[in-house]
């Protein structure tokens, strides 16, 4: 399989010279159809990394390639779910989820004539994340966790080639979160889009990912890469297997060490 996303010694400095150095010498290569997770201490530049890969923020140095093309502007057709759900308050849930269809081709051209088909699809996604019955509500009538789940649907509706998730389950309770791991894994196994998931939850990373990148404290760079070779589909039972626990432990120790080092420095 070929590399779908590659970063070569990428730097990112906010606010020009003398500004915050968020990333420094970051290398990554993610294969097509692979599920990658990025973990690291808070403020190490994970969200910044997402914006770099999608071309929303230009890098200060280094090269980023997606699907063989050097990223120089916003990519098209990425599915993105940010840390805070950015649903549009004037749209009801269903039309919020369907928003990407109004932008991305070929759906954009087909939406008018095949509306019913798309509505069914959106309803199906909402059902999968347990939001049926809320299609006609406004986002502000929903809880934070419900908004995050709808946010995930919006990121998936247009069958993106690349899915970028920035702590999509942050505001959810443990049970819902674990349930959604299963849902996301099912969808991913069916469609096999390349995915980059930023998370603080190491179990989440180990459950979902093929490969886990561990980042250092700011300025962030990749200091360790772990392949998760557990068979799929993984279940909650998997999370109690020794191999799973071992991976989580190793990464936890690495991050604890980073935090100590950065505190000492």
């Amino acid at each position, binding site marked *: 399989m070929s590399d779908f996303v590659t970063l070569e010694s990428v730097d990112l400095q906010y606010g020009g010279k003398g500004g915050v150095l968020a990333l420094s010498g970051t290398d990554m290569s993610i294969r097509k159809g692979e599920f990658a997770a990025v973990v690291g201490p808070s403020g190490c530049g994970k969200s910044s990394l997402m*914006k770099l890969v*999608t*071309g*929303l923020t230009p890098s200060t140095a280094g090269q980023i390639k997606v699907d063989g093309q050097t990223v120089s502007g*916003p*990519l*098209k*057709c*990425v599915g*993105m779910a*940010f840390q*805070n759900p*950015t649903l*549009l*308050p*004037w*749209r009801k849930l269903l039309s919020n989820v369907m*928003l*990407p269809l*109004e*932008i*991305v081709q070929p759906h954009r051209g087909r939406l008018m004539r095949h509306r019913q088909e798309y509505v069914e699809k959106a309803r199906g996604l909402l059902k999968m994340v347990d939001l049926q019955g809320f299609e006609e509500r*406004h986002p*502000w*009538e929903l809880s934070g966790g419900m908004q995050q789940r709808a946010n995930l649907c*919006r990121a998936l509706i*247009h069958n993106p080639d690349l899915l*970028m998730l920035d702590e999509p389950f942050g505001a959810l309770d443990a049970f819902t979160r674990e349930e959604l791991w299963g849902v996301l894994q099912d969808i991913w196994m069916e469609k096999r889009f390349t995915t980059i998931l930023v998370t603080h939850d190491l179990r989440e990373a180990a459950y979902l990912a093929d490969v886990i990148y561990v980042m250092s404290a700011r300025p962030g760079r990749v200091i360790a890469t772990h392949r998760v070779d557990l068979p799929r589909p993984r279940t909650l039972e998997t999370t109690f297997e020794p191999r799973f626990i071992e991976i989580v432990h190793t990464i936890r120790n690495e991050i604890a060490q980073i935090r100590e080092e950065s505190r000492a420095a």
Partner: protein
Amino acid sequence: MYSSNRRSLHLLMPWLVLAVLLTVWQLSVVVFEIPSFILPSPVAIYHAFQEYRPIILHHASLTMMNTMIGFGFGVIVGVLLGIFIGTIPMVYSGLYPVLIGFNSIPKVALVPIIVLWLGIGQPTAIATAFILCFFPIAVNVATGLATVEPEVEDVLRSLGASKIDLIRKIGLPRAMPFFFASLKISITLAFVGTVIAETIASNDGIGYLMMQASSQFRVPLMFAGVAVIAALGILTYVIFAFIEKRMTGWAIRGKK
């Protein structure tokens, strides 16, 4: 029960205040024997209104028409200007300060100039109404467009949205509450503009009527004119406030 009682009380309050004011006014005029050419009593004003009703209504309808035409132009120009300023940063930096400067000119000072260009009469009234009312609309629409949350924009940009898409899908809907809020302000300003122009340079309209009444010392008629303008101003304000509430319920999260 309790809350619905309270709600109707809230709706009643303005009328109560008005009634009290008018009563105090009437009583003071009677008790202190204030001559009607200084301050006519509400009852006297009402009689004047009854007496001159056809004339007042004729002039009021002209004022209303001029206001609405000026306001219509104001909305069109204000919205276009607002979109222009709010979506192109370079235009924002260039035009915004100039507009602020323009807006700080007392508009009455412009009326003689407008008269010079458009002559005495309806066009001047319309132009003055327009000049007074387009500014809040332009500024509000521009503000709404320029303050779109970057994260929301990022979501659309990563889908390959064009600048036009961004304006259509998030800029304009977001600017709607700002726009409707500015309509309420602008319609009142448009009234002010029309009446100012009519008092200075017109042969009809409420402003003209009041100048006439003033020169003939028909004080109750003047007050009747003021009352009619106030009523029209409130009426249009209420209409736009209602439209605002209907159109932008999401902005106040469905609260009353």
